[in-house]
């Protein structure tokens, strides 16, 4: 199922009518928020860690060229092969090339948003290479031919009944909705695949610049199995994923799990710094790192918006966002969703395709408050709204409304008449004015009888 960011309005309408999805999303986000809050409360240094994380990321991003070059050198010294991909197509063909060179027929993948971004799965499958997602949530959404609906919890929009049905239909197993049984089914199916796979593909949470290694966090052990069993490992990494050193890595190892799932530490932290097979007789004999730009260097060009590259994809801003809580991840129409997705969509996809995304926010500021990297998402959303408007991509009604207002604002008499009228006319109504589209879900506020002008004059008089 191909989603499009330009269809966001339709998706939102659909999502708002789907009570099951809303319930599932609500439950999941509230659970995650509560667990996170618990862990933040017992860490007296949380705010300091956030500052430190932000400063470290800033240091890396503001000298990204040097840092990437250093990272590349260190990776090569460690025996890894480094590839550079300008865009999604180039990244896909690099991965395919590696697979072809090594006669790869089966691939196990651990969860990676970057590979979702470049649609790697479908591509490899179309090329005749069996490619399986192995994170339970990703496995479920892959069976459904969907994309993840959350950065860290891909199947958050589905209930156990849904999963039971999907497994029954797609895997031919007997229907069950008992979570442990569902997991056992997936585990058995995937264990076989792990042991037989020719190649493992993962994303990268952090690339350690001074040591040339990739850090991959996970809970299920599927990344460990992808990186520790097949002969070839490919790690696909966005060029912004660097952290400076092992001295500061623990800052990120603390910030990410707490923000994502309320865990003090994820179960597995895989640090991959080169091939292992010649030393231990197992694991990869080749480790490839694919450095992906795909629009990131363009984002870097904006002196403010470059902060969106500090994101460590924890998903906390999604959980806390009143919009995400209502509509879920698919409504955004792209692999990055929620508040951070709303900033990334127009930046990656352009102001035409992504014209609605920056408006999927109430600008309440909760995302900024919760973000472990203190990214000023509301500020960036405003800037991107501006961009959409300047590009002439805002909605026609909105443009017309603003034009009318601008005209009136320049003609005080007409303005007074126009503002006097609704207050009076409203008295004839029981509730507030019906606003097309808006009033379907909630009521418009009532106009004040006096209006701003009168109040202001009164205030002025009284203060004299």
């Amino acid at each position: 199922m191909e989603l499009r960011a330009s269809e966001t309005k339709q998706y939102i309408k659909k999502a708002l009518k789907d009570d099951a999805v809303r319930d599932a999303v609500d439950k999941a986000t509230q659970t995650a928020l509560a667990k996170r809050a618990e862990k933040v409360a017992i860490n007296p240094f949380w705010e300091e860690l956030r500052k430190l994380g932000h400063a470290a990321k800033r240091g890396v991003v503001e000298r990204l060229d040097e840092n990437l070059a250093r990272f590349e050198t260190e990776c090569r010294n460690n025996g890894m092969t480094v590839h550079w991909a300008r865009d999604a197509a180039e990244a896909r063909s690099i991965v395919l090339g590696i697979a072809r060179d090594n006669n790869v027929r089966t691939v196990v993948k651990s969860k990676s948003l970057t590979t979702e971004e470049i649609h790697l799965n479908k591509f490899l499958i179309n090329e005749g290479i069996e490619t399986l997602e192995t994170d339970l949530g990703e496995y479920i959404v892959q069976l459904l031919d969907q994309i993840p609906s959350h950065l860290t919890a891909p199947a958050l929009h589905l209930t156990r009944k849904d999963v039971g049905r999907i497994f029954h239909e797609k895997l031919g197993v007997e229907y069950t909705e008992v979570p442990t049984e569902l997991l056992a089914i997936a585990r058995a199916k995937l264990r076989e695949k792990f042991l037989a796979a020719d190649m493992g593909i993962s994303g990268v949470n952090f690339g350690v610049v001074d040591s040339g290694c990739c850090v991959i966090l996970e809970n299920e052990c599927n990344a460990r199995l992808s990186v520790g069993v097949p002969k070839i490992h490919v790690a696909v990494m966005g060029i912004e994923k660097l952290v400076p050193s092992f001295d500061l890595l623990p800052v990120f190892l603390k910030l990410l799990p707490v923000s994502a799932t309320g865990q003090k530490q994820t179960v597995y932290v895989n640090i991959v710094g080169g091939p292992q097979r010649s030393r231990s007789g197992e694991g990869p004999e080749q480790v490839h790192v694919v450095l992906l730009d795909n629009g990131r260097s363009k984002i870097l060009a904006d002196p403010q918006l470059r902060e969106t590259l500090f994101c460590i994809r924890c998903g906390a801003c999604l959980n806390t966002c009143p919009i995400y809580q209502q509509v879920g991840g698919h409504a955004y129409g792209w692999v990055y969703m929620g508040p951070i997705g709303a900033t990334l969509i127009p930046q990656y996809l352009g102001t035409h395709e992504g014209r609605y995304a920056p408006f999927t926010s109430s600008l309440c500021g909760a995302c900024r408050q919760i973000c472990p990297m203190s990214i000023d998402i509301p500020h960036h959303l405003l800037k991107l709204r501006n961009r959409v408007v300047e590009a002439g991509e805002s909605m026609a009604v909105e443009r017309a409304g603003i034009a009318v207002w601008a005209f009136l604002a320049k003609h005080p008499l007409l303005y007074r008449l126009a503002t006097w009228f609704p207050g009076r006319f409203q008295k004839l109504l029981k509730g507030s004015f019906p606003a097309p589209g808006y009033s379907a879900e909630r009521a418009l506020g009532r106009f004040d009888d006096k209006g701003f002008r009168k109040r202001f004059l009164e205030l002025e008089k009284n203060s004299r």
Partner: protein
Amino acid sequence: MDARQQILDSIRRALETPSHLPDEAAPETLSEAIAIPELGLEEKIRLFRDEMKAVSGEYIEAASAAEAAEKIAALVREAPAAEASISSGPLVDAVSSALSAGGIRLVKPETLEGDARKNAVAKILVGIVEAPCAVADTATLAIPLDGRSMQAYFLPEIVIALVSAKSLVANHFELFKRMPPEERKNLLLITGPSRTADIEKILILGAHGPRRLVACLMRD
């Protein structure tokens, strides 16, 4: 122009505009946030034990190799199993003869090659391994990929991990500081048994890896 050059060039061009991000003061208590606390041995052990339980791991203690072997043998029998895969290392070596003498067949992955190795280890219910170092603050086992076979650490359903009390470090900052740079680069950190909460956020232990993780702390 090749991809590398083009990407680096476009980054350089982008960075010609300096950031408009607000200036950041260096966090004042930073030194504390990343400090390595001075903890006594007993305190580290207590932390490690409590954290291990908090992450649904299990914890046992032994004052000697003989006691550890006895407790581990009991766990293997309870599993129920008659065999176990083992990792290399001095702690495992210290208990292995007693375990064998107790009738538990031990499989050393290193004695098998390629496919035979992974297929054999995957069939064995229990793994007995050791962590050269562990983090008290999070109950994290740290295992450098130093040429040892790693399969007994993650393929079995039940993993029993020997940890020497002396090897406990306070937190991750200390862990990375102490570890030789070459060892840090290829490292597995394990905190509790594998898990998923992908179905309705319900926590289930034993996703694709171990369902049980028992840490056996050696005070010796």
